[in-house]
Every structure is written in C-alpha cells, then in structure tokens.
C-alpha cells in the first residue's frame, strides 16, 4: 500500500496534510511530501487523506 500524488494535478490546497499531519506535510512549494510506503496501522488515515483531496490528485494505491 502506498500514497501517490499526481504533481500536475495537485494545486497545493493542503487538505491532505491538514487531515493526516502525521503522514503528510507540505514542502515550501505546497507540494505534499510523504513516505511512499504506508504502514498497515496508518492505512485508514492514508485512505482518508487521499479521499479528501479536492482535485483527486492524491491516491492510495493498494
């Protein structure tokens, strides 16, 4: 399971980082940064973070 962001589509609204601050933070350019692999314990939080992306740029790949 891993998080994946479409950098062309991401506009940096930051809703993912607000939702899952332990998994995702925004860099100086408002691009989300995260560990690609998601630990099983964080799976639900990662799923929610992907689901709140307003422009469907963030995805959780299973």
């Amino acid at each position, binding site marked *: 399971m891993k998080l994946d962001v479409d950098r062309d589509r991401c506009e940096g609204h930051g809703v993912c980082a607000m939702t899952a601050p332990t998994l995702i933070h925004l860099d100086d350019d408002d691009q989300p940064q995260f560990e690609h692999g998601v630990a099983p314990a964080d799976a639900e939080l990662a799923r929610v973070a992907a*689901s*709140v992306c307003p422009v469907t740029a963030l995805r959780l790949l299973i």
Partner: protein
Amino acid sequence: MTALSNVDLFADDVLTDPFAVYRELRAAGPAVRIDGHDMWVLPRYPQVRAALAGHEAFSSAGVAYEDQMNEQLRGTVLASDPPEHDRLRAVLAERLAPRALRGLRVQIAAQADQLVDGLVERGAFDAVSDLAEVFPVTVVAELIGLPQHVRPHLLGLADAVFDTFGPFNQRTMASMGQMVQSMGMVAQAVTREQLSPDGWAAHLYAAADRGEIDESSVFPLLTAYLVASMDTTVNAIGSAIMLLAHHPEAFAALRADDTLAGPIFEETLRLESPVQGFFRRATRDVDVDGVTVPASSRVMLLFGSANRDEAKWNRPDEFDVARNPVDHMGFGYGIHSCAGQGLARMEAAGILTALARRVASIELNGAPRRRLNNVIRGLRTLPVTVHPAALT
C-alpha cells in the same frame, strides 16, 4: 425501478428551505427523475461525489439547465471538459493555487480587520450589505485589477449569471436582462489599457500573448474570476455570521480558539452550501447504483443535499464547530473543484478571526431575509448588533 418526483426545485418555497425536499429525494433513490422539469437529480453524497469524479460520463458542457445558456458558457472553464478544461484551469490555478496566494494573507487579514473595526464602532449593521457583500468585491476587484467604476456592478452580474443556470422560469427571465447589461459593462471595462498592469486580468492577456491560451479565452476566463468569486464567498461569509449569531456557544468557542475559523467555515459550506447544485449532461447511459440514467439526460448534482446526507454525516442538520467536514461537496470535487477555494478560505479566515478578536457577541437585530436564486443559497439582509470585546 426509477424513482420519480414532481417537486419544483426552483420554486420560491423550496429555494427558501430546500432541506425537507432534499431528504425526500435522498430517500427516493440514488438518482431521481424529476417530472416537471426534464432532468434527473443525484441527491446523495456518494453519487454526487462519483459523478464529479467521473467527468467522462457527466459532461460539464451541460453545467446549466438550458442549452441556450450552455451555449453562452462555452469556452469558460466551468463548462469545459478535458483536455480544453485542463488548459484553462492551469492558467487560473497559476494565480489561485495557495502557493500563489501566500503573499496575500497578511494584506487580506488587514483589509478584514479594517472593515470589521469600522462596523464594531457602529454596533448595529447589516452583515450582508455592510460586510459580506463588501469584502469579496474589495479583495477580488483589487486582485483582478479592475477599474473602480465597474466594481458596483459585479455582485448583480454574479447573481444574474447564476440564476440563468436554472430552467427558463420567471427568475431566469428576470435575470437575463440584467446579465446582458452587466456583462456589457464589464466587457467595456476590461480592455488592456484600463486594467492594473500587475493584476490577474492583465496576467490573462499576457498568457494569450505568450500563446498559452487563445485571445478569445481571455474574457470567458475573466468572467470565471468575476462570477465565481462573488456570490459564493459573499453568501458563505453571510451564512457563517448567521450561524454564529444563532449559536452563541460556537462564537464563544471561536473567540477562545481562533484556529476554529477554518472548521467553522467548512461547516458553514456544508450546511449552507452557497452553490446548491450544478448540472451535468450524461454522455452515455450511466448506471447510478442500479438506476439507469439515459444518455443525454440533464443531471443536477445536489451539493446542498449531499452535504446533509444522513448516511454520510452524523446529525447532518446540526452546526458542529468541531466537525471540520473537509470532504463536503460545497466546493465541488475533482477537476472542477472550486479553483478559488484557497482564496475563499483566506477571506473567510480574515473576517472570522477579525470578529473573534474584536467582538464579544453577535445578536440578530431583526429577521434575516433570503435572496432567492436558482442555484445559489444566501441572504439578502442579516441585521445584527455586535458588542465590542474588552481590549486585551
């Protein structure tokens, strides 16, 4: 079996309070055929969200009810599908993405403080005409770089344009004349020589000069800035103040912790979504959780209903400052998700934190009155009295 309803979603009484009707529609099915109008509605959260994400099946070429209006909207980002949409959106996003707005936060907060200071001194005022309608026009007209003389016409333009998203009812017909008149006035005011050289409008002309967009796209994109940034933000701010006046405990919580400004704004957008719904056109027969919506159908995505779907939200009709419902459909979702949501959040945070710092309590000083619009939910007047906070 196809669920049918004969409700007129654009009748005065429904627009005034649509939530009981929405509840019936949600109970009727995932997609409901509306008898009196030639349209379907999607009233539940999962299907609204899926339709917004599935733009291949639900085309924005039919974002308004009437073909004639869709024809007029052609070439705007709102009424486009990929790939044209993505090119237009990228030009807007270059100015509207949070990273582009970061430098504006301090300036917008200062503008909010100044406006709220003057109103606190007055004590009693109309939170719509003296506050909610003033702020977005001031902020956005400045950012776009519009000449002064056109600014008073912007709100009327936005309100009229959104009415024409509905079917040709009396409200739409009344707004058509105003739209044509205001649009003409704006068109005359946005020639290159009248615009601030560093504003967003000048930026659009520059993008055309560089060949990134066609010169013919400049005016449609400009109207996207103008129309989409007015009624929406005005009504969101007006509704937030109404909810805070109705819920003194929520305002007290905001005063104690102004980081609640964000969650309060999101909860306002969920409960009182400024855009209650937009249309799409089915590009093929679409299976909506067991209901077949035939190709070419008009489909209204009811954001306002999805945002109160009892299957998605606990106690959906309650204003809960702690909910922070960031996955509401108030900004839409997917490729057409509001391009200006970062700016809207910044404007709202500016106003709400300014109120939290300067005001001890907000009381209604008369009955609020609604402004009815075919797709927009908001207030015409909201008389309030505010009591100044002790200086700290």
